[in-house]
């Protein structure tokens, strides 16, 4: 997210949300449905640029066989159907953003702030963050953490940062290729390092990259990193193993693109009771140690927990019962079926 965008967001008043759902995986999406039936309007935040969580990020094409009523469905189809199912409730999505700050306000409600400065106030927070947030993988090179401020970057926030620098990009997918194409004109030198002379990225990007290599504007090196050199956080060289032996490659900026992994991330800092990176909840309301903060799906733990999508759906339904009581204190709730209730059918737009 650009610095300007962050400044703009910070200047806007906070969004008043019925509930903020953290995580747009299948369970987070179904929570929109269950909360929607209870008239709770949801804002959904996810670090990925699209809804679906692990289902669309890790296995969009893989068949899932244990969703009741759907003998076989792919991760992407399930996501698409859930999006269709929750459409009547008009959830607001904040994709490509991560909740960094969650704090309780004086009145018992919560304030949440994303990494790009979007702010929410709400009485109900639903953690549906699965295995945590998807974050770039850090190559296991000794001392890499020390260079992460100035020399090692897992994303490009501002292209200007790379002007007139000796840049090394590592990887064979679209991120590595796109940034090779974009940064080549700015950098003093640019080397693309990949373990094999075969790229997963879009064919036209591979073609463009090969043209830059042919023009001598980009150096393509086949090999793997083995170590880093530099001091005081400033990177000076990367050691690379190629089939011809070891090479010391001088560079001041390293961009490793090795995909994403799941990390609990900022959730660990919110004062919630944790148990081996999972959030313990009760099995009546799926509420955490903090009143008003619920945890559903793979991220929670309780005796007998199974990390199944269908368990997450059940948890969402029970969570919504309690969440609605926080949003509408004193209101009398009548348990109803979508099959027969006129009011539920009106909410669903089928009546």
């Amino acid at each position: 997210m650009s610095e300007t965008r962050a400044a703009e967001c910070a200047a806007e008043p906070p969004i008043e949300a019925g509930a903020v759902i953290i995580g747009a995986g299948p369970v987070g999406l179904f929570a929109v449905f269950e909360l929607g039936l209870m008239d709770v309007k949801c804002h959904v935040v996810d670090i990925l640029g699209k809804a679906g969580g692990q289902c669309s990020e890790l296995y969009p094409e893989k068949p899932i066989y244990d969703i009741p009523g759907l003998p076989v469905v792919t991760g992407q189809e399930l996501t698409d159907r859930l999006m269709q199912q929750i459409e009547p409730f008009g959830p607001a999505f904040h994709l490509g953003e991560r909740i960094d700050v969650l704090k309780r306000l004086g009145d018992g409600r919560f304030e949440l702030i994303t990494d790009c400065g979007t702010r929410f106030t709400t009485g109900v927070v639903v953690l549906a963050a699965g295995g945590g947030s998807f974050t770039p993988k850090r190559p296991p090179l000794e001392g890499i953490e020390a260079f992460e401020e100035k020399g090692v970057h897992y994303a490009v926030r501002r292209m200007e940062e790379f002007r007139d620098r000796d840049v090394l990009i590592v990887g064979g997918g679209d991120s590595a290729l796109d940034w090779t194409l974009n940064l080549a004109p700015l950098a003093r030198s640019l080397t693309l390092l990949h373990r094999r002379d075969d790229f997963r990225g879009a064919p036209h990007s591979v073609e463009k990259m090969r043209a830059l290599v042919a023009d001598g504007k980009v150096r393509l090196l086949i090999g793997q990193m083995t170590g880093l050199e530099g001091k005081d956080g400033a990177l000076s060289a990367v050691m690379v193993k190629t089939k011809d032996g070891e090479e010391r490659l001088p560079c001041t900026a390293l961009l490793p693109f090795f995909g994403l992994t799941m990390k609990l991330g900022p959730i660990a800092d919110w004062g919630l009771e944790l148990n081996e990176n999972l959030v313990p909840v009760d099995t009546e309301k799926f509420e955490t140690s903090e009143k008003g903060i619920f945890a559903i799906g793979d991220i929670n733990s309780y005796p007998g927990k199974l990390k199944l999508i269908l368990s997450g759906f059940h948890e969402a339904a029970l969570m919504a019962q309690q969440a609605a009581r926080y949003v509408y204190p004193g209101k009398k709730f009548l348990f109803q079926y979508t099959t027969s209730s006129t009011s539920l059918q009106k909410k669903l737009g089928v009546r």
Partner: protein
Amino acid sequence: MAKITFIQPDGSSQTVDAEPGVTVMEAAKLASIPGVEAECGGACACATCHVYVDEAWRAKTGKPSEMEEDMLDFAFDVRSESRLCCQIKVTAELDGLVVRVPAKQF
């Protein structure tokens, strides 16, 4: 049953009995072999079950598929004997298989 031996970076090793039909990753997880993480659960969607197949077994385990090669791009210190062990099915033929677990999954 097929015996599969996992050799750790420190030289120690564990041998497990695996039922033909499961994957080498599943056999490793069932026996809690250290160093085989399998973050994605066997969907060939991460590279955290990376192993090095012992020289003597390379022909029998075969080469990685294109999808597996793509995923190996996300592994560290990839060698010609690298495989993702969720993609190796245990068969009677593989009785005695030896694989090395890398120093780090990533």
